């Protein structure tokens, strides 16, 4: 408990220092609870998520960093490895391949990488996964772009 607090505080300070260094990630700690964080990440360029801002919610366990944080998308996203309703993310480093050397910041980078490189063979969103697996890249891209416009971009007017 004490160890996880101390480490999160160090990450907090690191985030303050790195803010300018990584413009794609904005990590914010909850005002009253250091175990709750949110992040705003930019959709990677040359993907259907380009131009979108996606919000992630982090719930950090007390055993952190020996246990991985729980992360989900708060912003709706059409992606094979993200549950369409709950925002749950299927990513090995958040489960079996977790290492205590990861930080909240580096988890955000991993999620950005996952957005650019979906894994259709372990889908949480079967519709999205099936489009990719059947080779319908255009179908997948246009669905993903539509949801990016609907959910991850500021409404016009």
């Amino acid at each position: 408990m004490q160890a996880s607090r101390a480490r999160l505080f160090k990450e907090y300070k690191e985030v303050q220092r790195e803010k300018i260094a990584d413009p794609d990630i904005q990590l914010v700690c909850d005002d009253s609870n250091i175990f709750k964080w949110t992040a705003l990440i930019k959709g990677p360029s040359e993907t259907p998520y380009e131009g979108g801002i996606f919000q992630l919610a982090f719930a950090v366990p007390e055993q952190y960093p020996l246990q991985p944080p729980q992360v989900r998308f708060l912003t709706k996203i059409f992606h094979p490895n993200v549950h369409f309703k709950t925002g749950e993310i299927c990513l090995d480093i958040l489960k079996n391949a977790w290492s205590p050397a990861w930080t909240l910041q580096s988890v955000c980078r991993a999620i950005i990488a996952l957005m650019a490189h979906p894994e259709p063979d372990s889908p949480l969103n079967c519709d999205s996964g099936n489009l990719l697996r059947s080779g319908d890249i255009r179908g997948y891209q246009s669905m993903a772009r539509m949801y990016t416009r609907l959910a991850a971009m500021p409404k016009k007017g």
Partner: protein
Amino acid sequence: MNQEDDKGSSCSTGDLNLCPICLGPIVQDSYLDKCFHKFCYTCIVQWTKVVAGKLSRPLPSVKCPLCKTENFSIIHGYDGNSFQQHHINQDFEHSFVLTRGHKYRLQCYYSEPGVVSDIFNASRYWKSRKYLQPNRWLQSWLRREIQALMQEEDVDIIVHHILGVIDSFVSRNEPKSHVKIPETKGEELKALVSDAARPFLGARTDRFINEVELFLASGLNIEAYDAVYMQRLGWSFPGVTSEASEGALSGQTTVIPYLYIFDADSDGPD
């Protein structure tokens, strides 16, 4: 323009002396044995426990949290000369931790040989054929020595093996039997013990034989021998001798200078 910054941000610990697990300054430097990544001792041990706990059985190895290399032990307690090694497949609660007595002996092996060889006269030991009399501290002394060198607690089988070799040598060389040149006797026994110990001690065998010879020649008990040795090395570890005797020398607490020149009949006043 900020290449340095980019490098630093790709790994949050950068090249600072920070533990990748707690992100704090490293406490008790510990290295994994294959990739040599550095962590706090408690951090990497805790992580190993978490990994083992998931599988509920002892692991043969642990993946480095930084580079995923499989590692088989944690190296820690490095003090410039000696270090301790924790094998992943051992139970952490029951793992063997070197006492200060063990550490001091291990450090002796990193010192120049011959530190005390002028005090304890080995050739007189062989000449006077003192080796035919049993040394009642030898077993405890061997155990501590081999424990320190191998960093293993259970070395009984090796100790008994070496003692057996010595005993059979002694019984073959009863006082009445043919008299050879004493020095060759010494070399003969040393060669036998060397053969017995080499499979376990490897490159340290020769020095080990040297130390065994000196201990036997000293005729001292462990405490007294340690005191002389450390005085000669100029080391003063308060409490080392008493701690050393704790495990290895149970029961024998009185220090009797056991010099062979005064010793006509060692089994007298027991």
